[in-house]
């Protein structure tokens, strides 16, 4: 088991956003958390990254308790998040943004970093075209690609993707999901948070359905996809 979240409770002031959720991610998997607005998906991601303090419960990564570890140290362990929305550095160029991804890497040989840069640019050819442009001048979809690419530059063992499809055109969504599958095939474990449940469940090995801070259902991605209750609640019931 790569990541184990147990009875996690997180609160914003007096309001509990996560009321004791548990789930696991195994090495090599794509696991997705789906749910409506306010279900606690982004809070879960921010907590796994260490940006939010927990009220109770634990987060274990590869057997190590990281519940109270500072955010930046989790990156060194191999957890890297592509944040929700426009979590890029707007005043840095695309290249500088990608370079920030290698911030914690100890291998000073630039050849390894260059190889990773080439790989990211191969996954996202659009970033190659925009390489000297400032991050803030990119379109929403390009910024999303940049955020994912930047996270990949850290060579994560576990890649956390928070709403990678948010605000994107349908064609671009399919493309992003293809890339996520490709990244996973190349050996990176992925934890994916999505409102676009149908795409996410189709791509994921396993899924968890979140509802107002609780896990209400879990199962194989395809099973959840065909579950009538899930279909009715999240997939528009067709």
């Amino acid at each position, binding site marked *: 088991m790569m990541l184990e979240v147990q009875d996690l409770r997180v609160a914003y002031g007096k309001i509990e956003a996560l009321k004791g959720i548990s789930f696991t991610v195994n090495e090599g998997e794509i696991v997705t958390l789906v749910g409506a607005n306010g279900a606690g998906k982004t809070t879960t991601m921010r907590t796994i990254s260490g*940006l939010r303090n927990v009220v109770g419960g634990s987060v274990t990564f590869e057997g190590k308790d990281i519940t109270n570890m500072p955010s930046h140290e989790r990156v060194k362990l191999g957890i890297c998040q592509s944040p929700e929305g426009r979590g890029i550095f707007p005043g840095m160029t695309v290249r500088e943004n990608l370079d920030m991804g290698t911030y914690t890497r100890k291998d000073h040989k630039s050849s390894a970093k260059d190889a990773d840069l080439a790989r990211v*640019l191969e996954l996202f050819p659009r970033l190659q075209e925009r390489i*000297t442009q400032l991050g803030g001048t990119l379109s929403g979809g390009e910024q999303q690609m940049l955020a994912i690419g930047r996270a990949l530059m850290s060579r994560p063992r576990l890649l956390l993707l928070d709403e990678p499809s948010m605000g994107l055109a349908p064609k671009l969504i399919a493309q992003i999901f293809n890339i996520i599958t490709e990244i996973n095939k190349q050996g990176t474990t992925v934890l994916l948070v999505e409102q676009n449940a149908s795409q996410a469940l189709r791509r994921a090995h396993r899924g968890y359905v979140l509802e107002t801070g609780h896990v209400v259902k879990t199962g194989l991605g395809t099973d959840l996809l065909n579950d009538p209750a899930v279909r009715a609640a999240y997939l528009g019931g067709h």
Partner: protein
Amino acid sequence: MSLSESLRSVTSGTRSVSRLGEALAKQSRSVRWSFGAICILALYLLPWWPNVPVLGWIVETPGTSFPSVLTDQVVIFVLVALGLNVVVGLAGLLDLGYVGFYAVGAYTVAILSSQHANLPWLLCMPIAVLVSMLAGVILGTPTLRLRGDYLAIVTLGFGEIIRITANNLHWLGDSRGISNIATPPSIGPLKFGVLDAKPYYFLGFTTILIVIFLLRRLENSRVGRSWNAIREDEDAAELMGVDTFKFKLWAFAIGAAIGGLAGSLYAGKVQFINPNNFPLQLSILFLAAVVLGGAGNMWGAVVGGALVAWMPERFRGFADKRVFVFGVALVLVMVFRPQGLIPRKIRKERWLESWKPSTGTALGSKE
């Protein structure tokens, strides 16, 4: 020539300065070095600039001795702007109480060289820098968890606390202040007395050069890169593995140290300080200097600091309307150059030119 026209010419002037910088970057190393050396020499001779025929009147300060304006105002403001630029411009932390660190530096020198001991200035100065740095860490440790406006309010309070404490503690000379502060030691023909301000200017300008050299190294290091990321997006920086708290604290400490250094120079020059030398308004003017020059650009901070210090003296001829003229000038600069006189872009643009968008070997061109 109307005011806005003259302002346009000022702003186009800074644009040609940046163009000059680009042109210079293309020159060979020796050309760049000799250009730099000539500039530095010319600036060392700054106290004599008003004596230059035809053009001298532009810089002269009617009613006040020009060398004194340089030492008491310009040098101090440039140093302070350099320090505050680290905090505000590089790390993106809004500090409205920067005068507090400046005061800590000045008071440390005053206490150690006059009020409670008789240490020489040369020994007091490094102690003042360390004490200010410590003050930065003490203020920063609990407050740097705050962000944006909240941090600004807390720092605002800090500046006032320092001033009011000095005003009320007998140990700090209360409202009467501290006099007979030690001056820097005389070196050969450079006599640090009350008659000639020029030696102080040479000392101050040399200090500025050293600070610029050190800051440049810092800016281009991993530390500078971390500050850049924190300013752009603190959460994203943390997610990329930047220890944001540590680097924010470093920015605060380094900024405070430079502020304290400026304070120790000031105390050594004027030899008498009291709490009224460190009003809240000074914090605002320091910030104005950084923003006017171009937050995040060291050369901008230098220009902004020099202008904010020099302009009120230059406009002294307007008598009681001089502050108004100064204010209008500031507003106009911000209207026409919202990013400041020398925005932070310059370095980036040069960086872009060196990047050739192609695959393969070019990937390794940087780093």
